[in-house]
């Protein structure tokens, strides 16, 4: 399955693609190549600013030219040559304006004949590790990854992350300036640094995926495509670092979660809980791939459990259950035990409590839930408590817990869902409203 990654991505994603960008196959070819071309150009120009501008320009030209004349036999070489020529123009112009020699080494390197990247795969790794460098703030890492790895425009990133466009422009400019001025190197870390640095990369990629997956309002189509982009980048990393269990686990987790995306919202956009989802609408090919990956990752991390691999194992338990009622809750609770032992934080304990509730009943889950410290300001803690109190036949306490959740910040679809559950406790009110 991993071997199939080289073929073009599925031309028609479940939700109809990215209309803002023209959901054509040509656009996707250009975009997929664009990432590799950018990774090479950042190395040869030594500048994110120049590389991004040059590659964007080359991609626009490619769209015009290829539409008319067809895709050339080696699209990546065409893009690299076009982008390189544009970069030479940009550096020359910059030099003339500022009359300085700073970029001269890079200009010389660019002018030397290097039509093809010597190690395009390594360039992509360089790009990933630079975007996820620990000296950049997490927000900057996510923004820069979306810009350079996923090829989103600044307005698209701003819309996806629900941030004003001016804020996003400033955030990206600051990140690029820091890379240049502070001298963040464009390289793959040495073996001894790799575990730490890779943990930074997987965390950022998962954040990026979650921005799409959480579907907290905003542009839904953009968010679906965000998930797909995160999966694609992770898939490319797995191909290049096949021995890293954590990366494999992350890819499995993304696939297994994204497989349910078609069933997670109703036709009217309302949230559909796992228990109520139409499992025939899940993407069973993605599930199969995810399950194989997670099995492989588990074998590779048997002595050293990894957060993403364990989370993927939990997702696999859900995805493999033919119905909600037949879910293997005992297995899920055991996986959560491993996850909690990895110090995965209070949200892992919250999810474990939910699984305990399915295995042992609501009272047992409530006891677990009340023992968790640090989630008082987390709306899902109160909302989960409310659901359990309903099932335990304690409606007054449930009402209070729903109200508590609603007092905390919640995205619109989730707020609507909690309000609806709260209202269902008082059917008379619902009729009168």
């Amino acid at each position, binding site marked *: 399955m991993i071997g199939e990654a080289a073929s073009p991505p599925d031309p028609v994603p479940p939700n109809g693609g990215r209309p803002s960008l023209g959901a054509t196959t040509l656009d996707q070819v250009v975009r997929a190549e664009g990432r590799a071309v950018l990774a090479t150009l950042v190395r040869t120009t030594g500048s994110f600013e120049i590389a991004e501008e040059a590659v964007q320009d080359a991609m626009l030209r490619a769209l015009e030219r290829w539409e008319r004349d067809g895709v050339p036999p080696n699209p990546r070489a065409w893009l690299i040559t076009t982008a390189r020529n544009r970069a030479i123009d940009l550096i020359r112009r910059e030099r003339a304006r500022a009359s*300085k020699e700073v970029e001269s080494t890079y200009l010389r390197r660019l002018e030397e004949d290097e039509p093809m990247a010597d190690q395009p795969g390594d360039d992509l790794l360089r790009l990933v590790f630079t975007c996820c*460098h620990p*000296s950049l703030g997490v927000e900057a890492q996510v923004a820069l990854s979306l810009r350079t790895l996923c090829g989103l425009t600044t307005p698209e990133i701003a819309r996806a992350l629900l941030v004003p466009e001016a804020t996003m422009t400033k955030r990206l400019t600051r990140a690029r300036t820091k890379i240049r*001025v*502070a*001298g*963040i*190197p464009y*390289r793959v*870390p040495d073996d001894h640094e790799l575990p730490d640095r890779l943990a930074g990369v997987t965390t950022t990629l998962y954040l990026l995926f979650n921005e799409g997956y959480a579907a907290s309002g905003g542009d839904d189509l953009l968010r679906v495509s965000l998930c797909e982009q995160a999966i694609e980048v992770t898939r490319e990393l797995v191909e290049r670092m096949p021995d890293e269990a954590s990366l494999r686990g992350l890819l499995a987790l993304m696939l297994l979660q994204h497989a349910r995306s078609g069933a997670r919202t109703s036709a009217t956009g309302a949230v559909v809980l796992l228990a109520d989802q139409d499992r025939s609408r899940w993407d069973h090919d993605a599930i199969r791939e995810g399950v194989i990956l997670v099995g492989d990752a588990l074998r590779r991390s048997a002595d050293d459990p990894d957060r993403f691999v364990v989370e993927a194992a939990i997702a696999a338990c859900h995805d493999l259950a033919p119905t909600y009622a037949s879910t293997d809750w005992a297995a899920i609770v055991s996986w959560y035990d491993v996850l909690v032992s990895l110090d995965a934080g209070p949200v892992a304990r919250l999810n474990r409590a939910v699984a305990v509730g399915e295995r042992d009943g609501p009272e047992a889950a409530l006891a677990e839930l009340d023992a968790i410290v640090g989630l008082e300001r987390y709306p899902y803690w109160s909302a989960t408590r409310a659901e359990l109190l309903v099932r335990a036949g304690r409606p007054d306490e449930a009402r209070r817990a729903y109200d508590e959740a609603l007092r905390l910040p919640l995205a619109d679809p989730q707020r609507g869902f909690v309000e609806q559950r709260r209202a269902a406790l008082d059917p008379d009110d619902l009729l009168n409203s």
Partner: protein
Amino acid sequence: MPLYAAIIYNADLDWTAPEQADVTKEYQLFGEAAASIIRGGAALYPTATATTVRVQGGKHGDIVQTDGPYAETKEVLTGFYLLECADLDDAVKQAATIPGAWDGAVEVRPVIDFGM
């Protein structure tokens, strides 16, 4: 190679006091180990000896001196090095061997080259 300032923030202490001998010994070791990349630096007397200067009313205005450092914080600027390093990763690696990094924190900042 680029130049980085490694600015050390620690508890407000007197490097010249005999009880700091162990720490200054550690700094001496760092100085020897990093001799080839150290391009300058200084250890500073404690903030009790500091005077903050401000000129009010613009250039050539009234000179106002106040006792002590600019900001009252638990960790204060106690010294700095100028280090010549290949890149930020290298600078961070070097800064992590400065004793202040485990007694407090070391801020690594690129130094501007005005080309003069």
